[in-house]
């Protein structure tokens, strides 16, 4: 039921699509716990997922928290921004940047990071724990 989700939102987030194939939704936090135009880190068992609330673009993104460069659990503490129109995050350690939408490394040849789908229902942020990529 696509509409029930959209109806829950006062204004629809631009990049959220309904992923029917996702069954494993993790309730990550409340919308107001997320940091506007920044990231927080979500614990998922042994894993860590970085969740970004890109308020400026009215978009949500989730990626792995570990930076592939030196394997630091740091991406959620990185600054987000855009390169032309591509949303990206910069690792605080050595400023390698990764696309938030595809996970691709935008500066050099680090491997890509995993990205996850995000949905919002009744003010709760859910992360689909099967990676998109």
């Amino acid at each position, binding site marked *: 039921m696509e509409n029930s989700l959209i109806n829950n939102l006062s204004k629809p987030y631009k990049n959220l699509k309904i992923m029917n194939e996702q069954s494993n939704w993790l309730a*990550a*936090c409340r919308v107001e*716990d*997320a*940091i*506007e*135009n*920044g990231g*927080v*880190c*979500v*614990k998922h068992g042994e894993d*860590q997922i970085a*969740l970004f609330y*890109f308020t*400026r*673009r009215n978009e949500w993104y989730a990626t792995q928290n*570990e930076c592939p460069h*030196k*394997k*630091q*659990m*740091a991406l959620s*503490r*990185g*600054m*987000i*921004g*855009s*390169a*032309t*129109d591509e*949303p*990206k995050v*910069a690792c*605080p*350690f050595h*400023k390698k*940047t990764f696309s938030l939408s595809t996970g691709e490394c935008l500066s050099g*040849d680090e491997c890509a990071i995993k990205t996850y789908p995000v949905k919002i229902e009744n003010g709760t942020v859910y992360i689909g724990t099967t990676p998109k990529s």
Partner: protein
Amino acid sequence: MKEPQIIVIGNGMVGYKFCEKLRSKTSSFNVIVFGEEPRRAYDRVHLSEYFNGKTAEDLSLSTENWYQEQNITLFLNNPVTEIDREQQKVYTANGLDYSYDILVFATGSGAFVPNIPGTEKEGVFVYRTIEDLDLISSYAKKARTASVIGGGLLGLEAAKALIDLGIEKTSIIEFAPRLMPRQIDAAGSDMLKSKLTDLGLQIHLNKNTTSIEGDGCITALKFSDDTVLDADMLVISAGIKPRDELAKACGIEVGPRGGIVVDQKMQTNDPAVFAIGECALYDGMIYGLIAPGYEMAEVLAANLCEGDKAFTGFDMSTKLKLIGIDVASFGDNFITEPDCRTIIFENKHKGVYKRINVSNDGQYLLGGILIGDATAYNLLLQTSNNRIVLSENPEELILAASGGSEPASGTGITSLPDSALICSCEGVSKGDICSAVANGSCENIDEVKKCTKAGTGCGGCLPMVKDLMTYTLKSQGKYIKNVICEHFNYSRQELYDLIHIHELKSYDAVLDALGKNDGCEVCKPLVSSLLASLWNEMILKKGNDVAQDSNDRFLANIQKGGSYSVVPRVPGGEITPDKLIVIGEVAKKYNLYTKITGGQRIDMFGAHLNDLPIIWEELIAAGFESGHAYGKGLRTVKSCVGSTWCRFGLHDSVSFAIRIEERYRGIRAPHKFKSAVSGCIRECAEAQSKDFGIIATEKGWNLYVCGNGGSKPQHALLLATDLDTETCIKYIDRFLMFYIRTADPLTRTATWLNKMEGGIDYLRNVIINDSLGMATQWENEIEKLIASYKCEWKEAVENPAIRKRFSHFVNAPEDKDPTIEFVEMRGQKRTAEWKTV
């Protein structure tokens, strides 16, 4: 009409370059390329980077689709095995035949393997292809000692690769009495040898290998002097052997010591057959470098398109970095007296050797050798190639301070003729570069590279290309604007003024009013720093926090592993025993590593993000405050004890240092800045290495500015002498404001001054004589900043919304990051090494 068909044998660097040059001139000709190696042509010159993480794809010279897009048929893994010149046909390994109208040999060369018994043994390698490197790196895993036969350019490079692969003991065996016998002289070789020995390489000169010992696998080398050297593996790099076997078999003329004989048009004795690159022998010589190979490709491609070019030999000057050591030779490097005058500069301590050969009349530079410091290479090469008349003191050419871009004599880039060849790999002249810039087609270095191709080969000419670009832009009166990033079309200084005028107070407000799109990791911290410099409000105010660099955002320095370090302020380095005890107690309680910093305070490492607020709380309760070690702003003001204890002290340097540190603490600037105060000229506080430093005199204080430690140390310069305390502070106020307003992002005061037209005299005029008329405004501005100072730690722990941010997991606020690991060392903890895969 059917297009004439060109067959190229060999898909190496020169074969590829030929295709590229041909296609840039014409789309006619059917082109078929046969390669013996299993992959598309790659950058052999940078082959060793394969060991430093570059992949075969990174080294590739073209994209996968390139050949198809260019309408070139490429066969890989399919060497040509036979040629029938009568029928004009080639036969290949896969059993097919193709006819040609024009045949091009670009078969390159192979490693020359001397006739020593035992070269067939396991563990003996050559160094030429990616496959060779794969074999070497897998064998190296079980080897402890290794040798390289050959102390030339390639041998040294192979030796470096072996060190990088983790071989404990690597030796170089050279038959000649010196290293790199083709490029450098005996004195240069001595210098190089001692530097290489320092790096752990063993060098054996004058050694003739007679056999390779071992039963199946190599175990040792035997020499003609009956000595033996253990070796688990061996790389032979004793020179190159042109791949002329195929040409020879079909009756094309080859030289007595190998190489396909060609004329100025690269034509062989069969008019339909040509040879280019390392397989071609021109005028009795094989050109074993990439630049002449590319020139041959250009000559042939141009002539096939009705051009009229000739290859007439090539300058074999080279500059390379071997294991971090500069080595260069140019022009006539070996000519000796009495045919010339030789000037030699040698500094054994620093491992620098420079030799230039000057014509007997002192007019021209003939050639030379540089070891240990080759910064002057490009200019020397140009000076010699273009026969630029030397100044009276040619020794200045090699005495010029290293790192300085222009030697003192009249040989700067401006005096080069337009025909001067700047990029020899791609054959780009000074005129080409300057006119590309002048006609407006390129305004930055990437564009220059794209449209002229200069600097896209070995890259050695890039600094000169850059200088030429800047020089041309400047001479056209073009303003070279340092825009911040794609989101702000302003320089830092412009943005500073605009934010001030519009009274903007948050990153988002600045982006909305002056920028575009969503910002990035370059403009966010920069704007945040400007906001802090202008208004000195709490930097973690909602909305601004996420625009701070990670260190500023968490008011602590992020360290390897993801933990943070905590540095409380210790003004002037003065601390009471009680406070020392508190630091010890806090560090113990939260299991922190402690170390005395270079700035006379104590750093506590290894704090979990979650623990930061509580650590600060305890420190604040004991009277500490944030030391701003994380911010771009004032770090410390060091001091010596001065007149309070020291028998030489003239004034109380500690009190002055404390006053200054408390005055400027927390003020944000384009970069961090440091200070120190010494109680007399003995200078125990090292004030002359600081952004501003103060030294007591009989009559008052001397003020020094724009010094700097770090990677490029620079002494501070004397700004004013014998100042009374208040005047000294007034000058520092003005100095700091001038710096904060006008410096480029992330520019320390030393670099800021280096770029300032008029230098220290201009600066003195602005600060002391108020030549800009800004002094009063600046003094007022800085008073405001000082008055609005608050301890950021205190504000963070007292504000629940900010404090909430200091937890690792949003959905498990109590949990710390479980991936942070520490190990023990000398009774304290340290962070675990970077995790490799």
